[in-house]
C-alpha cells in the first residue's frame, strides 16, 4: 500500500528539518545507532495514552546535517499485534515535538537478513523516502563474509548503508544519504510526511498468509544473494556463539556462571561504589558546613546548609551505585548474555507462573521499579505482566540502598565492613526469595486464562562497546536524578521547615518536639510503636513515600537538630545511638532496626512506582491493591519481627 499525499501546500514549513524515524526488530542494533546519531543527547518521551517510551533527539553536530531522529520500540512487524508494535506504527504517523516523520531508516542486522528484511518490505509500503541501515557491520566485514550492498539496494529500491555499532563507522554516510533522499524528487513530493493520512495510515493492510509466504521466500533468496551464497564466514561467527552457549547454557557450568555473574554485579555495586560514595558524602558535608559557616544565624543559610545540601547529599551519595547497576545490566544486555540468563531461568520461573522473560524486568527492579515496570512491556501475557509488576517493588531497588547502608551501618557499628556486606547480600537474596514467594502465591490466586509465552531469539555474542555503554548508563543515571530531584527538594523544604518552625522553644530537642512536624508525629506514635520506633522514625517512614532514600535525609534532618555532628553519616549513626525513648531506654535496638529493615524490604513507599504501576497496567485498582497489600504485609511483618526479637532479647 502506498500513500500519496493529498496536499502539498502548508507542509513546507516542516520541511526545514528532516525527521528520521528508526524502525527495526528487537536486537537489531537500533538503539545503539540512535545513541551514535544523537551522541545520546536525547529526551525520552512517553507516548500519550500509554507509557511505552520512544526517544526523540537531534542529530549530533559533528554530522554537519541538521535532522531529528526518532527511535521507535523494536518490532518484528508493522502489522501490530502487541502494544510495542502498535506504538511503533503510531510513532510513525503522529506529530512529534520535532514535527512529523519525513524519512524512514529500517535497521536490519546484517547477520539476520532472512528475518529482518521482511520489516523493510513492510516499511516500503508506508511510502516515505527510506533507507536501510545494515548493522553488525563489524561482523559481516569480518573473515570471509561477502556482503553485496548493491544487490540489496537494488532489490529494495532504496539506499543501503553499512553501520558498525561498536565503532560508530557509517554515521557520516547515513547523514549524507539522508541529505540525498531529502533533495526534492522529480515525482510527487512525499516529503511533507504523511500527515494527511494519520487516520488512514493506521489501517495499513496486513499481508495475507499467502502473501507473507511469498514475501518471505523472496526475502530468503534475496538474503542468500546479498550474502553472495557465501555464508561460511557467518557460520564461523555462529559457531563461536554456539560453543560459548554449550558452556553458558550448561546445566552445571551455565548455572555456575549465572550465579557468579549476578554476585559479581551485586558485589561491585557495593564494593566498587564505596570509595565514590565516600567522596560524594565528603563534598556535600563540606559544602553544607561551609554554607552554615558563612552566616550561622541566618535562617536562609541554615536552610541551604542543613535542609537542602544535606538532603541532596544523602541522595547523591548513592548515584555511583545506580550508575554501576545500569552499567552492569547494560553490559549483560549488550553482550547478548541477558537473553541466555532469561532462558536459564525460564523453567524455575514457570513454576511461579512467570516466564524467563520476566527476568529482565525483575533484574531491572534491583535498580529502580519504574524502568523495571516499563521493561515488563515485552511480556506478551497480561497475567505474566500483572504478576511481574506486582512483585517488582519487592526487589531491592537502589533507593533502598541508602536506607539499608544506614541501618546495617547501625547494626554493624564498629565491626568489619565485610559483615555489613554479607548482610546486604543476604537482603538482596531475601528480597528475591520474597518475590518468588509472592509470585507463587499470586499464581495460585489468579485464574489462569492465557498461555504465557517464552519464545525468544538468542542473539550472537558480541563484545559490548564500553564507551557507548558508559554514556548510556550516564544518561540513565542523570534521568533518574532529574526525576527524583524535584521531589527531594520539595520534601527537604517541607521537613526542614516542619522541624524548624515555630521557633522560640528552649533547646533544639525541645524545639523539634514542639515543631509542626513534631506535633503531627505524635499522632503516629500508636501506629509505629508496635514495630519498636517512635514518632521521629514514623515521620521518616512517611516522608519515604516521596522516595525511599528520603528516609535517610529526613532522619538526618530530624536527628541533626538534636545532634549536630561533623560528618553526616557518622553523625547520624551517633545520633541514632544516642536517641532515647522518654523512659531513657535506647530507641534504636537490634530488634527495632531489624523491624525497620523488614518494613523497607516489603513496603511500597514510592510515589513514582505507584504512578507507573497504575499507568503500565492501565488500572488504578491494580496500583491501589498493590499499595495496600504490600504496605499492610510490610507493617505486619515488621511488627512481628520486632516483637519476636525483643522477646528473644529479654529471655
Amino acid at each position, binding site marked *: 500500500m502506498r500513500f500519496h499525499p493529498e496536499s502539498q501546500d502548508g507542509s513546507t514549513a516542516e520541511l526545514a528539518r528532516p525527521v528520521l524515524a528508526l524502525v527495526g526488530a528487537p536486537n537489531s542494533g537500533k538503539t545503539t545507532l540512535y545513541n551514535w546519531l544523537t551522541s545520546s543527547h536525547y529526551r525520552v518521551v512517553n507516548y500519550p495514552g500509554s507509557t511505552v517510551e520512544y526517544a526523540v533527539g537531534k542529530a549530533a553536530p559533528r554530522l554537519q546535517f541538521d535532522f531529528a531522529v526518532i527511535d521507535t520500540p523494536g518490532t518484528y512487524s508493522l502489522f501490530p499485534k502487541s502494544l510495542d508494535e502498535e506504538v511503533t506504527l503510531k510513532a510513525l504517523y503522529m506529530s512529534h515535538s520535532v514535527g512529523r516523520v519525513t524519512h524512514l531508516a529500517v535497521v536490519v542486522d546484517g547477520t539476520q537478513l*532472512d528475518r529482518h528484511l521482511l520489516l523493510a518490505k513492510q516499511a516500503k509500503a508506508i511510502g516515505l523516502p527510506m533507507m536501510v541501515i545494515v548493522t553488525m557491520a563489524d561482523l559481516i566485514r569480518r573473515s570471509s563474509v561477502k556482503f553485496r550492498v548493491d544487490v540489496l539496494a537494488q532489490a529494495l529500491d532504496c539506499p543501503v548503508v553499512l553501520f558498525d555499532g561498536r565503532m560508530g563507522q557509517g554515521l557520516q554516510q547515513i547523514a549524507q544519504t539522508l541529505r540525498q533522499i531529502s533533495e526534492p524528487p522529480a515525482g510527487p513530493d512525499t516529503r511533507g510526511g504523511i500527515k494527511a493520512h494519520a487516520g488512514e495510515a493506521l489501517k495499513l493492510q496486513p499481508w495475507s498468509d499467502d502473501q507473507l509466504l511469498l514475501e*518471505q521466500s523472496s526475502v530468503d533468496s534475496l538474503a542468500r544473494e546479498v550474502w553472495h551464497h557465501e555464508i561460511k564466514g557467518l557460520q564461523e561467527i555462529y559457531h563461536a556463539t*554456539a560453543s560459548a552457549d554449550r558452556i553458558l547454557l550448561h546445566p552445571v557450568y551455565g548455572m555456575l556462571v549465572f550465579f557468579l555473574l549476578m554476585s559479581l554485579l551485586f558485589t561491585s555495586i557495593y564494593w566498587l561504589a564505596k570509595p565514590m560514595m565516600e567522596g560524594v558524602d565528603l563534598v556535600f558535608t563540606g559544602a553544607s558546613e561551609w554554607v552554615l559557616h558563612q552566616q550561622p544565624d541566618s535562617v536562609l543559610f541554615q536552610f541551604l546548609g542543613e535542609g537542602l545540601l544535606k538532603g541532596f547529599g544523602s541522595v547523591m551519595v548513592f548515584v555511583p551505585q545506580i550508575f554501576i547497576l545500569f552499567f552492569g545490566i547494560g553490559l549483560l544486555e549488550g553482550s547478548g548474555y541477558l537473553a541466555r540468563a532469561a532462558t536459564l531461568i525460564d523453567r524455575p520461573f514457570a513454576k511461579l507462573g512467570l516466564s524467563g522473560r520476566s527476568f529482565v524486568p525483575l533484574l531491572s527492579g534491583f535498580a529502580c521499579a519504574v524502568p523495571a515496570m516499563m521493561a515488563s512491556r515485552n511480556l506478551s501475557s497480561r497475567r505474566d505482566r500483572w504478576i511481574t509488576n506486582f512483585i517488582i517493588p519487592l526487589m531491592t531497588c537502589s533507593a533502598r540502598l541508602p536506607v539499608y547502608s544506614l541501618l546495617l551501618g547501625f547494626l554493624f557499628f564498629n565491626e568489619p565492613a565485610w559483615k555489613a556486606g554479607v548482610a546486604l547480600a543476604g537482603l538482596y537474596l531475601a528480597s528475591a526469595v520474597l518475590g518468588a514467594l509472592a509470585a507463587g502465591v499470586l499464581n495460585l490466586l489468579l485464574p489462569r486464562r492465557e498461555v504465557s509465552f517464552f519464545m525468544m531469539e538468542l542473539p550472537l555474542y558480541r563484545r559490548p562497546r564500553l564507551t557507548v555503554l558508559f554514556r548510556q548508563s550516564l544518561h540513565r543515571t542523570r534521568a533518574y536524578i532529574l526525576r527524583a530531584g524535584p521531589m527531594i527538594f520539595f520534601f527537604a523544604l517541607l521537613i526542614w521547615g516542619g522541624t524548624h518552625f515555630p521557633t522560640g522553644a528552649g533547646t533544639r530537642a525541645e524545639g523539634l518536639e514542639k515543631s509542626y512536624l513534631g506535633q503531627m508525629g505524635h499522632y503516629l506514635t500508636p501506629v509505629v510503636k508496635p514495630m519498636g520506633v517512635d514518632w521521629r522514625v514514623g515521620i521518616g517512614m512517611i516522608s519515604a513515600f516521596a522516595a525511599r532514600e528520603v528516609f535517610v535525609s529526613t532522619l538526618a534532618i530530624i536527628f541533626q537538630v538534636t545532634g549536630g555532628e561533623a560528618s553526616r553519616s557518622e553523625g547520624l549513626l551517633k545520633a541514632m545511638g544516642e536517641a532515647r525513648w522518654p523512659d531513657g531506654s535506647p530507641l534504636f535496638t537490634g530488634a527495632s532496626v531489624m523491624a525497620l529493615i523488614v518494613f523497607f524490604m516489603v513496603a511500597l513507599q514510592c510515589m513514582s512506582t505507584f504512578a507507573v504501576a497504575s499507568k503500565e497496567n492501565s488500572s488504578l485498582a491494580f496500583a491501589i491493591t498493590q499499595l495496600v497489600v504490600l504496605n499492610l504485609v510490610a507493617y505486619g511483618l515488621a511488627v512481628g519481627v520486632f516483637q519476636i526479637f525483643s522477646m528473644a532479647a529479654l529471655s
Partner: protein
Amino acid sequence: MNHTEKKTLQDLKPLESAEVESFAGSPDMIARLRELGIRQGLQVSLIGQAPFWGPKLFRAGLTVLALRQEEASCVFIQSLKTDRRRN
C-alpha cells in the same frame, strides 16, 4: 526424507534436522512463532536445551531460537533423515 506420523519440533532429537511444515495452536501462538522467523520450509535443528528441562534451543540458519516445549509442539515438521551440515 521419510514420511511417518506428524512430528513437531518437540519430537526432534539432538542434532537432527527438519523442515517446518505447518503450525498448530492458538492464532496468537502461530503469529508469534511466525514473527520469530519460523515459517514453512525453514530448516531447523535441535542444538540443546536449557537446564531443568527448560526451553529447547533450535538452530535456524544463523539464529538460535529458544522455545518452550509447549511452544515447540505447535510447529509441525518433516524430518530430514540425514544430519547434513547445510544452511
